[in-house]
């Protein structure tokens, strides 16, 4: 069974939702503490949302130096899947496992609401069960979600198809460049998104659009195994 380590930092607050969403998708979830030096044999490291270390200095800046992050980096460098959601995305950027940075929202307000997003790429561990171009509604909840990168990095992300999730036209809640809501690294094993699919995985919650993101995590090893080198995104796949 696929094992997913949910990494808890002091101030993480979406860890239990993430844990539940992983289990609901049929994977085995386990918690890993920020002081741990390993991932407890997990196949996937998931950095959940929250306000690690109170967002002191910059969101994600202190968490980056937690002992567990050395294990996360090693896992990523070995090709293992690493997923960051919201604060997890901020941490991955601060750790330079993903390019760019997440700055204060353009209108200074904390935004907490459902936002329409478009799935841009389906050859990643977080989107392989979705259809390219699919429009999904996902909750966002952040004060520092404005994605920025220098022009060269931004051009590289776009030309390499590494923008995996974009806010739908007119729905950009924070001023992110190019409406970016989520990106991947070049090897496509490290991904980060600002919206919270783990908060929308059951009809009981009023929205289950997020469930497929966790199905993707489950499906990714099989997706990638036959032809990792091809890594094509097939719009007919659903």
């Amino acid at each position, binding site marked *: 069974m696929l094992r997913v380590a949910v990494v808890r930092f002091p101030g993480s607050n979406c860890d239990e939702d993430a844990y539940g969403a992983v289990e609901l998708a049929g994977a085995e979830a386990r918690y890993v503490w920020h002081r741990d030096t390993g991932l407890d044999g997990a196949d996937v490291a998931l950095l959940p949302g929250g306000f690690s270390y109170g967002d002191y200095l910059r969101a994600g800046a202190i968490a980056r130096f937690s002992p567990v992050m050395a294990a996360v980096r090693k896992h990523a460098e070995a090709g293992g899947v690493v997923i960051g959601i919201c604060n997890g995305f901020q941490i991955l950027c601060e750790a330079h496992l993903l390019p760019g940075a997440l700055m204060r929202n353009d209108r*200074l307000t904390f935004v907490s609401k459902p936002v329409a997003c478009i799935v841009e790429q389906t050859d990643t561990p977080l989107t392989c069960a979705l259809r390219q171009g699919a429009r999904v509604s996902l909750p966002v909840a952040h004060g520092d979600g404005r994605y920025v990168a220098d022009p060269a990095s931004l051009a590289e992300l776009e030309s390499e198809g590494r923008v995996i999730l974009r806010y739908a036209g007119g729905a950009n809640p924070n001023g992110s460049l190019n409406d970016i809501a989520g990106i991947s690294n070049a090897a496509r094993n490290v991904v980060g998104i600002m919206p919270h699919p783990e908060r929308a995985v059951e009809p009981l919650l009023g929205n289950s659009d997020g469930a497929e993101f966790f199905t993707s995590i489950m499906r990714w090893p099989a997706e990638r195994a036959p032809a990792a080198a091809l890594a094509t995104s097939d719009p007919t796949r659903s």
Partner: protein
Amino acid sequence: MKYRVRVRVMPRGGLLDPQGQAVEHALGALGFDGADEVRIGRAIELALDAGSSDEAETLARAMCDRLLANPVTEDYELAVEGR
């Protein structure tokens, strides 16, 4: 010897600074019409053991590069003084 390090971290020019804009509007509302280009950064002070002022500056730059400033979005200046 102990050195006093003062670091000034500012959002990189050209990047939107919504805090600076909000404060600029507030200054305008107070009647300070001449104030513009308001930008908001961060000041950090620390005491540092080092063999020389140069060594203290080298250490402080390493701190800025690795933690105190984000190289993607911020620029920093630092000053080192003996105490």
